[in-house]
């Protein structure tokens, strides 16, 4: 029996029923039931008496507090660990901790009260209610059972938004006499086949009555965005290449002329692997060439042990380095060679809503005779034109290029200059070692900021959380097209 028939059956036997009783007896999810009933109302199978109900939505801040704990809870934990001076703590957190009677202030220092000590075992009512609201879609009636005071507090702290919405309250089966036997509601296969609709009336539907929500299935916004960026480069005659995210430090750092004692090679910034701890480097010849260059330029002895340490690449420039070697080792190229690469890079960050440990970068490379800074500027200008950005150029410095440049633009959204990319002409020390005698232009850019702007996101974590409600609603259709 379909759910609709089960509902009709239930109503036939039990008469007028509440939303909750139907849901409970038939074991149908409240939200699903509401949609079904609205549908049945359109089809004139049931009568619904609506009531104005409160609907609670958890705000972004609320979700953060659920995940990370309330500020006053964090304060309490810190106060348990060490003696805190009141000037060193968040005043809002302190206010709430005091109001809850968890702490008192003695000599400008925070002292945990007996009540505060018990929080861990007793629990924090505010958070419990918020978590409950987040987990369950609580029907109106139950909502009023939750302490209204607590709801008020949560609302005043901007952790929830309480909205009025129309909810089915009492449902009854529609009287048979309401039906006009000659009116057709759902057109059926047999009606079409037997042409029984001829001469009959089609029941008129209320076009403003509610209907089911249909959710799209779609590609992830990141894929759509990366495809768009890749298409621009391909249309400019660039070929897409890829490379591994796991690299020996040699390809990620040494070949890019970053000395082995450079701070960016610290475990504080780079993910080193404990397994496989070291990676094989097959190109022994290249290694000895770079050893010489590091010695000549940076005046130290490059260690093979450090070169072979496994890392998660910190920049897609490692892909460019590998491509340069492939180009340098083979012959008979048709110049210019134009390549680009898009991929993930990794940084050892403490993750929060602003910082991620992995993100996307784009990297470009052109090899050919007599290529200059002016050519590099042309390439980047062409790309920027394609994404609608008016760029400016200034000098900059990266270990592997000379001369180097930085490209920036003025962002209306952020009211400030924003870096688009960095680049330059790869140092001769590198290209010579790779076996390339021609100039190599290279540039790289982060993509996460650009997609944030495109989707008008405030937090980048949203993009990788894959919250279905967000994926179902986020739209990038308007951007980039002026219809």
């Amino acid at each position, binding site marked *: 029996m379909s759910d609709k028939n089960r509902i009709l059956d239930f109503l036939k036997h039990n008469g007028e029923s509440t939303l909750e009783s139907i849901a409970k007896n038939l074991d149908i*999810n409240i939200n699903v039931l509401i949609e079904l009933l609205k549908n049945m109302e359109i089809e004139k199978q049931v009568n619904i008496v609506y009531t104005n109900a409160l609907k609670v939505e958890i705000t972004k801040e609320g979700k953060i507090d659920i995940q990370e704990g309330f500020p006053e809870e964090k304060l309490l934990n810190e106060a348990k660990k060490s003696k805190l001076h009141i000037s060193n703590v968040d005043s809002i957190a302190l206010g709430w901790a005091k109001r809850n009677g968890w702490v008192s202030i003695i000599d400008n220092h925070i002292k945990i009260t007996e009540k505060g000590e018990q929080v861990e075992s007793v629990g924090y009512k505010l958070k419990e209610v918020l978590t409950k609201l987040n987990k*369950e879609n609580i029907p109106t009636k139950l909502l009023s059972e939750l302490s209204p005071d607590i709801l008020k507090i949560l609302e005043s702290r901007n952790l929830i938004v309480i909205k009025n919405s129309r909810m089915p309250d009492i449902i009854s089966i529609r009287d048979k006499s309401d039906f006009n036997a000659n009116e057709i509601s759902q057109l059926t296969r047999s009606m079409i086949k037997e042409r029984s609709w001829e001469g009959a009336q089609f029941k008129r539907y209320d076009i403003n009555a509610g209907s089911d929500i249909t959710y799209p299935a779609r590609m992830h916004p990141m894929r759509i965005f990366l495809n768009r960026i890749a298409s621009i480069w391909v249309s400019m005659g660039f070929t897409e290449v890829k490379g591994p995210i796991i690299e020996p430090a040699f390809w990620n750092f040494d070949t890019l002329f970053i000395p082995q004692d450079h701070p960016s090679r610290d475990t504080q910034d780079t993910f080193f*692997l404990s397994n*496989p701890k070291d990676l094989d480097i097959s190109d022994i010849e290249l290694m000895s060439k770079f050893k010489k260059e590091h010695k000549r330029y940076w005046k130290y002895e490059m260690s093979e042990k450090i070169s072979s340490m496994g890392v998660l690449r910190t920049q897609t420039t490692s892909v460019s380095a*590998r491509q340069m070697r492939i180009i340098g080792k083979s012959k008979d190229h048709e110049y210019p060679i134009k390549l680009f690469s898009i991929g993930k890079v990794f940084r050892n960050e403490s993750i929060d809503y602003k910082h991620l440990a992995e993100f996307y970068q784009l990297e470009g490379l052109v090899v050919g005779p007599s290529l200059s800074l002016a050519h590099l500027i*042309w390439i980047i200008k062409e790309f920027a034109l394609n994404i609608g950005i008016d760029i400016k150029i200034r000098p900059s410095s990266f270990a592997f290029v000379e001369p180097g440049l930085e490209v920036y633009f003025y962002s209306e959204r952020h009211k400030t200059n924003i870096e688009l990319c960095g680049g330059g002409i790869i140092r001769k020390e590198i290209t010579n070692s790779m076996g390339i005698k021609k100039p190599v232009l290279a540039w790289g850019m982060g993509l996460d900021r650009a997609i944030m702007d495109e989707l008008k996101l405030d937090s980048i974590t949203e993009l*990788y959380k894959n919250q279905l409600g967000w994926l179902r609603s986020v739209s990038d259709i308007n951007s980039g097209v002026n219809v």
Partner: protein
Amino acid sequence: MSNVLFDIKDFERMGIDIKMLDSTLTDLGMELESIKDGVVEISITPNRPDMLDFVGIIRAIEYMHKKRHPKENYYTTSSQIAKTITVSESVSNIRPYISAIVAKNVNLSGSALKYLINFTEKICDTYGRKRKKIAIGLHDLNKISGDITYDATDNGFMIPLNEEVKRSFADILKSSDTGIKYGDIIKNKEGLIPYLSDEKNVIAIIPILNSNSTKVTSLTKDLFVDITGMSQDAIDAIANILSCSFIDMGATIEQCKIVYKKSNIIVPLLKMRDITIKRFRIDETIGVKFETREAISFIERLGYNGAVYGTSLIAKVPPYRIDVLNDQDVIEDIAIGFGYGKIEPLKILSPKQGLFNDITLYTNKVAILMVGLGFMECSNNYLTSENANYDMMNITKIERSSVVSIEYSKSPSINMLRTHILPNLLQNLSISAHEAMPQRVFEIGSIFMAQRRNFKESLHLSFVIEHSKSNFSEIKSNVLAILNMLNIKYELKTLSDPTFIEGRCAAIYSSNKLIGKFGELHPSVLSSFSLEEPAAGAEICLVEDIKYDSQHLKA
């Protein structure tokens, strides 16, 4: 990038307003980061340690605006040897090298002393790798008696800076901030601690702390500077930068003699270096045609002197430009002197068409198929934890040798790279629990396995269906649909897998090779992810062991 702070007033006193400061710094490749409470924050690229100093920035700005014209041999020393420093054998295994400067008639009034101290600390922090490579000590020359010895001992005493009582070296290392911070740099088996002393007192523990006896104040007129480190070249370079700053502060530089066991050297040697650049290299690199004379006028804006030599240009590099090693570096400065903004873009002509990478094309095709089957695409991180990847999936047997694991992570939720995608999707459903059912999600992406001194990356497809009536037959029909569309010949075999309900999961074989699995997820797995509705999932390997080396240039 390193950021340095200066008072706006000091720039204004030099006739430089904020607007001029901002635009000139941009032209030089530096950045005015912020202005707050009368203090400007400037970010300096790592190739220009000379610009970490107020004097260095003023110098660069004045040259750029031609308020000052570079003079050959302006930065020079008097021929007098002011101090002799004898280096003992015992430092050779701890911190072998020292360089030194005597600067007379330095004006340290106003902000000058503060800026000088900030400058030396910034250099030690960045270029000096937190004093490991380079450390600098400033002393009042007139409080030093006689010549200097650089030695090491396990039994020394000194009155630390800003204190009054003599304490043992060991005590100072243990209790002072810098001792705690930098003590490890000089750790050695013998427990020797390097120090500098004059004929009466210890004047510094190297590279930790100075003594109070040679303390520098804003009234100090003459300076003695010690620079110690692990390479003579590196510390001599820094001695050059500092000397040029002192000269621009009005001082005269006198030299010091360093007496090593095997040889003696004189420092600092302020010499201009000549770099010869072929004319065509300039045009070719920048993409603008210049007369050699013009090119010379551009590097003069960067503080060089220049001369024409046949079809070449000779650039005379000032001693503070320790980053300039060959023609590439000079050409960049010619471009800066010309102005990056004035370089006219040059079109690259090439008839070749661009191509997408095979992996991009393939994953796009699969994604379109999955969307067509009604699945929402997710995009998750590669980094994960053993808990999420294994424990929550009921997997207890873990082959640790095949896990790509992270040595140290700042985030507790990260310690490895994922070996499958399914747990990511379950996590996505978990945070979407209150969204309307049914839920159908998928992801195409890489997974990673460790091998001996190597690793394997494979391309996987995973998808999950969650709703009150999801079951084996529904996931199976979707699996078969995608396998057929992808032209994968398959055979299904029974599978026993703790992630799935026993008897309701299957292994997918292709050419006798296990390529995937699917089934109804075990209720205990659903509970781990707080999923309250039944769910069925699949994981299929699309490309095993991606080899990027074999990629060829098709264009």
